[in-house]
């Protein structure tokens, strides 16, 4: 987990991954 915040490349990758996850989750919340 720590590497996500200590290595900038992983930070960016995690940010993009979270964005993609929301892309699928948000339409489910909105119904």
């Amino acid at each position: 987990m720590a590497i996500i915040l200590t290595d900038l490349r992983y930070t960016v990758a995690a940010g993009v991954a979270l964005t993609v996850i929301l892309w699928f989750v948000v339409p489910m919340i909105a119904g």
Partner: protein
Amino acid sequence: MESFDLNLLIRFLHVFSGILWIGLLYYFNFVQIPTMPKIPDDQKPAIGKHIAPAALFWFRWAAAFTVLFGLFSAWRQGFIVDAMMLGWGQGSLHTTWIGVGMWLGLIMAFNVWFVIWPNQKKALGIVDADADAKAKAGRTAMLFSRTNTLLSFPMLWGMLASKHLVGM
């Protein structure tokens, strides 16, 4: 000439403040933090004593004004409550997306004012702290700065998707 639209002015100030805030966040994460270890020790005070405190001044106030103008904008346009509830039961992608962006932005602004800034004050010697406490504070500030960098992607996406992904 189009009639003057106060919502446009508020949004302009919101986006302007946001650029200043996130621009400095990216400066810290993409430029200053990775470059610090490469700077000779005798030159480090130029960053620690002069550049970083100035950057942090604009950084934290830009964060405050981004949130202020953003919330005012949402309130004035009448969707602040629906958005904060993530559009639950509204069947509206607009309020859900903007709500996701708003919550992430609020979490980030909280991190700036209540975690990053208090810890940076110790790390940069603006308030007194012993060497151990300074090092610990510096690491905490860095980790929360990284967290904000991570959150900035879905935050920006939520802000823009509320306009562009709706109706797809």
